[in-house]
C-alpha cells in the first residue's frame, strides 16, 4: 500500500512547529531525521521505569535494562538481515563504525603498498578514517570517478581494484546524489581479489530495505539519528567470522575477560568492541525507531522516496536558472541537490528558511564530490516518509523566490 505522508506526518511532533511564521517544511532528513512520537515515548518510559547500567547488575532493574539493550541489538540484526546479533556492535554513529573498522581491522591488516579503493562521492566519514590510517601505515587510497550519468563508473572501479586492493569502501546511497550503488556487483569485484568490502549505509538504511547478506558486504554501518532514532547511537555489522578475529578498538569496562595491573584479556564479540557504559537508552530508542520503519513498510518508504525524487526533479527542472545534480531512475532516491545560477547555496537556504523550508547548503561533507561536480557547494533538499508533494511545491516556490530576490546579484 502506498504511503500516506499526510497521515504519517502526525507521528512527528516537531512537524507541528512553525519556523519564521510558516509551518515547518523539513527537507533536511538526510542530515538528520526527525523522531516519531513512539521513539520519544520509548525513551521516556525506559528512563522512568527500567533504567540501570547493563551487563553488570545483580538486581532486577539492571537485568531489565540489559534485556532491553540486547533486544535492541537483535532488532538491529533483523533490520539489516544480519545472520546473528553477535556481529552487531553499537557505536555512536556511522562515523565511529568506520573508524572502528579502520582501527581494529585496518591497523592490523593493512601495510605499506596496500590499497584502499573508494569513490569520489564518499561522505567524509568514509574518507578521513582512511586518511588517518594511510598516514600511519603507508597505505594508498584510490578514488574512483563518477561516470557521465552521475553513477559510480563501474569500469573505472573494476580497473582500480587490483591485487594490492585490501579494502573497497563505498556508500550504499549517496548523501548528495541520492543514487544507490550496485553493491553485489561491487562486492563481487572486491572479493575477486580477496579484498574486504565495507559499506557506508548511513543514508541508505533510512530510504530502502537493507539486506547485508544479499549485498555481499563484509561490514555495514548505520546511524540511528538518520533512522528516526535518538542521536548518539549507531551500529556496525561485520561478518561474524571476521569480527571474531579482530583485536579491540577502545579499552575499558565491559570489553574485558580478565584484567591485571599491566595486561588484560578481552571479551568475545560483540562486547569486545563496546568499552564502557554504552548508549543504553539510545539503543532502546533505536529499537522503537526500527519498529516504526518496519510498520510503515520499508519497501513502501522506498517507493515513496523515489516518487518524491521524480516529483521534485520535475518541479525544479521547470524553474529557469536551476541546475540539478545526480542521475534519474529506479536507483535514485529522495535526495535532490541543486544550485540557483549566480546565487550562493547558503543564500538560497536562507531565503528558503525565511519561508519555513529547511534545507542544507554547502559541501555536505563530500568535498571531493563537489570538486568532481565542479561546484563549491550545492543546496540540497532531502525527503523522508513524512514528506508530501505539497511540501515540494513550497520548496519550488521558495526557490523561485530566491532567484528573484537575488536577481540583481546574479
Amino acid at each position, binding site marked *: 500500500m502506498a504511503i500516506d505522508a499526510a497521515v504519517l506526518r502526525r507521528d512527528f511532533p516537531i512537524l507541528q512547529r512553525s519556523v519564521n511564521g510558516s509551518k515547518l517544511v523539513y527537507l533536511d532528513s538526510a542530515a538528520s531525521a526527525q523522531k516519531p512520537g513512539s521513539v520519544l515515548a520509548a525513551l521516556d518510559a525506559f528512563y522512568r521505569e527500567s533504567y540501570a547500567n547493563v551487563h553488570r547488575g*545483580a538486581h*532486577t532493574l539492571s*537485568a*531489565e535494562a*540489559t534485556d532491553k539493550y540486547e533486544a535492541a541489538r537483535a532488532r538491529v540484526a533483523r533490520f539489516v538481515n544480519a545472520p546473528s546479533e553477535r556481529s552487531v556492535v553499537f557505536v555512536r554513529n556511522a562515523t565511529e563504525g568506520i573508524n572502528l573498522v579502520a582501527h581494529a581491522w585496518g591497523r592490523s591488516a593493512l601495510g605499506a603498498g596496500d590499497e584502499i579503493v573508494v569513490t569520489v562521492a564518499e561522505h567524509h566519514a568514509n574518507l578521513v578514517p582512511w586518511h588517518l590510517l594511510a598516514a600511519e601505515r603507508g597505505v594508498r587510497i584510490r578514488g574512483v570517478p563518477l561516470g557521465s550519468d552521475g553513477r559510480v563508473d563501474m569500469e573505472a572501479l573494476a580497473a582500480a581494484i587490483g591485487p594490492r586492493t585490501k579494502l573497497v569502501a563505498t556508500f550504499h546511497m549517496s548523501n548528495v546524489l541520492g543514487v544507490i550503488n550496485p553493491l553485489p556487483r561491487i562486492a563481487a569485484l572486491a572479493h575477486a581479489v580477496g579484498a574486504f568490502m565495507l559499506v557506508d549505509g548511513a543514508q541508505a538504511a533510512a530510504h530502502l530495505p537493507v539486506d547485508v547478506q544479499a549485498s555481499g558486504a563484509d561490514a555495514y554501518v548505520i546511524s540511528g539519528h538518520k533512522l528516526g532514532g535518538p542521536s548518539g547511537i549507531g551500529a556496525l555489522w561485520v561478518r561474524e567470522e571476521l569480527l571474531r578475529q579482530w583485536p579491540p578498538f577502545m579499552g575499558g569496562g565491559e570489553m*574485558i575477560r580478565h584484567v591485571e595491573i599491566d595486561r588484560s584479556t578481552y*571479551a*568475545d564479540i560483540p562486547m569486545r568492541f563496546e568499552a564502557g557504559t554504552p548508549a543504553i537508552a539510545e539503543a532502546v530508542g533505536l529499537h522503537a525507531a526500527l519498529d516504526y520503519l518496519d510498520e510503515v513498510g520499508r519497501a513502501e518508504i522506498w517507493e515513496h522516496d523515489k516518487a518524491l525524487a521524480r516529483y521534485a526533479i520535475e518541479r525544479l527542472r521547470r524553474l529557469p536558472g536551476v541546475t540539478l545534480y545526480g542521475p534519474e531512475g529506479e536507483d535514485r532516491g529522495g535526495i535532490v541537490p541543486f544550485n540557483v545560477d549566480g546565487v550562493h547555496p547558503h543564500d538560497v537556504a536562507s531565503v528558503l528558511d525565511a519561508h519555513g523550508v529547511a534545507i542544507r547548503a554547502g559541501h555536505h561533507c563530500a568535498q571531493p564530490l563537489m570538486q568532481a561536480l565542479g561546484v563549491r557547494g550545492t543546496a540540497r533538499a532531502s525527503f523522508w516518509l513524512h514528506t508530501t508533494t505539497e511540501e515540494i511545491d513550497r520548496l519550488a516556490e521558495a526557490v523561485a523566490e530566491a532567484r528573484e530576490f537575488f536577481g540583481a546579484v546574479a
Partner: protein
Amino acid sequence: MGFLDQVYRDAVLEHARSPRNRGELDPYSVRQEGVNPSCGDELVLYLRVEGGEVAGASFTGHGCAISQASASLMTQAVRGLRVDEAKLLVERFKDMVHGRGAHPSLGDAAVLEGVSKLHARVKCATLAWIALDAGLDAEAAGKTEAEQISVDQE
C-alpha cells in the same frame, strides 16, 4: 520470601554447600575453563569421554551458590550420557533457565528452574553447562586443554 525460596530451593543450597564431583579428574580427556567476566567467577571442568560416552565429570573453581550448585548438578546429570545426549541436555538446561520449561530429562537439575525468575543470575547457572558444551566440542576435535570460554558468548 517465596520468590527467593523458589530460586534457592533446599536442594540448590544443599548442592552449593556440599558440591558433588568437586576436584580434578585423573585421568581426564579434556580440561575446559569457563569464566563469567561480569563477576569474575571461574570454573574448571574436567571431562572423561570414553567410547562416545561421558564417563566422568568434575569441576573446581569458585562462584556463587547458583553456579556451584549448577556445576554439581551438571556433573551428576551428564555421567553416562552419550555425547550427543549431553549436548542436547545443555540446550534443555538453557531452555529451562530462560523460562521455557524443564524437560524431564534434566532430572535433579530441574531444581534450578527458579533461576529463570532471577534474570540477573541466569549466567551463573549456565556457566557450567556452556563449559560442558565447549568441552565436548574440544574433546571431539582432539584437544586435551580447551580454550577458555566465557558466558558473555552466550
